[in-house]
């Protein structure tokens, strides 16, 4: 049964919970560093290890970042709110509770406008609250390295206590078959907004942005169905696939007269579907209560107003402006945005490249390489300044397109700036007219038949001789110059 057919009988309702790790220098409640990739348990202290008597103190920068996210998502900022203890027993939290917020979130009632196929959909934001991340557990002893069959767990608390912002949408009905795409577009927009604020690197593949997707189905005109919560959705593409696979799975159960159980499910990147996670029967009894060790948060309205006035340009507005400035189509701009290349192309243009030149490299060679390595463009190994310098060498005629690609390979391999790579590898275009003329004359002498044809006016035949010259100069000549020189030597120019 086709997806389209399912959507004629069922209406999906989706909701998304997104966790964003803030990029503060220190943790939420202590001064431990938050550097990624440190040796295990070297960024820990009595507070984040929950040693007896240790007391937390809130990180001002984390509160500010949360308020800025709330403002950027059009939320109201609470005049007064408290932290709360979420009690659960699991070794990833040494305190046996997570310091979070419960019924008094810092930001409430906002929205994000998401555009899909030229239509704007408003996604309501229920709440944005601040909490702390958990430690990382490594399950060992099992055959698969996963929790099933593991005999013990190894815990690193470096991540425990890093500020985490949770952004929860209101339930979104009425999206029909577009629900998966709109869910993806929402997460992408959220990522762009948060990136523009500079409060997190929002890297889904590194876990600094994580998404849980709620999905339910109901027949038209009936009440909303029971929802499932899909966890472990760690890429934009997976957000779309997770919603779609849940719609298909739930519809099959409902078609057979079955019931959907409220449960947590895990998304599998490799298979593109979900499987049941742990039962929530006992896990949901979190016994929240106000955190006695932290005093209430009461943001000064003047401070909030200052933060609001200083919000950066909205990514959607920025995209519209840049599209105009760069002179490209909406579709091209969307590809740039989807590739996460807006800022990097902007920086490349600021470094002196033309919009077309900057876009060509980042959306071409470098995007392909980023894809292969499965990294973001910013981690591909070339900087905006280097790409601008590369394009400059092309514009000056020192590199042709093919040589420039080779130089770029050297740059991303860490061989230095484009000019250094060009010099070290001897890749500069042969502009020495003497050498070129010799090569051209050689080609004419070696191919008298073709040369005769050209002399007779069959200019189209010149390509073969240009090719021959390019070959003897190992591609290091400018094809246009060679052609001009060739025609000149043959007396037909």
């Amino acid at each position, binding site marked *: 049964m086709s997806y389209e057919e399912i959507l004629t009988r069922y209406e999906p309702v989706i909701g998304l919970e997104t966790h964003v790790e803030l990029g503060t220098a220190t943790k939420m409640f202590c001064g431990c560093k938050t550097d990624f990739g440190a040796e295990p*348990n070297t960024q820990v202290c009595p507070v984040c290890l929950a040693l007896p008597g240790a007391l937390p103190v809130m990180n001002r920068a984390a509160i500010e970042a949360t308020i800025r996210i709330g403002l950027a998502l059009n939320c109201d900022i609470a005049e007064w709110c408290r932290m709360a203890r979420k009690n659960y027993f699991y070794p990833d939290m040494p305190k046996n509770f997570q310091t979070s917020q419960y019924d008094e979130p810092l930001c409430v009632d906002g929205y994000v406008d998401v555009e899909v196929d030229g239509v704007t959909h408003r996604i309501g934001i229920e709440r944005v609250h601040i909490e702390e991340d958990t430690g990382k557990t490594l399950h060992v002893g099992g055959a698969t390295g996963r929790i099933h069959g593991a005999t013990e767990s190894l815990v690193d*608390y470096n991540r425990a206590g890093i500020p985490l912002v949770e952004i929860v949408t209101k339930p979104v009905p009425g999206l029909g078959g577009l629900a998966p795409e709109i869910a993806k577009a929402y997460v992408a927009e959220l990522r762009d907004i948060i990136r523009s604020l500079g409060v997190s690197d929002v890297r889904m593949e590194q876990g600094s942005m994580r998404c849980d997707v709620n999905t339910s189905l109901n027949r038209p005109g009936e009440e909303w169905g029971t929802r499932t919560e899909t966890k472990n959705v760690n890429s934009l593409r997976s957000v779309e696939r997770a919603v779609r696979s849940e719609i298909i799975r739930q519809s099959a159960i409902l078609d057979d007269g079955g019931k959907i159980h409220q449960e947590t499910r895990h998304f599998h990147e490799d298979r593109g579907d979900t499987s049941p996670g742990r039962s929530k029967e006992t896990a949901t009894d979190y016994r929240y209560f106000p955190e006695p060790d932290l005093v209430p*948060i009461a943001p000064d309205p003047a401070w909030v107003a200052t933060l609001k006035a200083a919000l950066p340009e909205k990514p959607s507005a920025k995209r519209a402006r840049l599209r105009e400035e760069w002179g490209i189509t909406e579709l091209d701009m969307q590809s740039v945005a989807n590739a996460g290349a807006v800022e990097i192309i902007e920086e490349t243009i600021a470094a002196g490249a033309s919009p077309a030149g900057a876009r060509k490299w980042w959306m071409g060679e470098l995007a392909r390489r980023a894809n292969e390595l499965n990294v973001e463009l910013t981690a591909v190994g070339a900087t905006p300044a280097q790409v601008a310098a590369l394009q400059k060498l092309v514009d000056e005629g020192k590199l042709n397109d093919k040589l420039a690609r080779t130089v770029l390979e050297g740059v991303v391999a860490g061989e230095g700036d484009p000019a250094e790579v060009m010099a070290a590898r001897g890749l500069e275009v042969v502009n020495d007219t003497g050498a070129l003329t010799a090569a051209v004359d050689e080609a004419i002498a070696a191919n008298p038949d073709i040369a005769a044809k050209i002399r007779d006016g069959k200019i189209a035949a010149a390509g073969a001789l240009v090719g021959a010259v390019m070959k003897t100069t190992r591609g290091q000549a400018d094809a246009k110059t060679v052609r001009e020189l060739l025609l000149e030597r043959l007396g037909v120019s």
Partner: protein
Amino acid sequence: MAAISREEVAHLARLSRLAVTEEELDRFAGQLDVILQSVARVGEVAAEDIPPTSHSVPLTNVYREDVPTTSLTQDAALSGAPDAYEGRFRVPRILDEED
């Protein structure tokens, strides 16, 4: 009526991963009931115009600046751990309900 039932105490013990015998359940349910009833008496004297208090100090907005401080060394961090392996805390297999 009791402020807390024997079943609720058993539930809390399970959430806290405490092994409690049948005899202990009877005893703790009785003790906790006395404690809860005593605390509940405070509510009898609280006037309508007094809001519930979660914090005894009249403070808000106590923050620290986002400046790193010195952390423990790995050895110091693990010194109190019952077991450790390759710089990590080693704990028993986690929760049956994960299966």
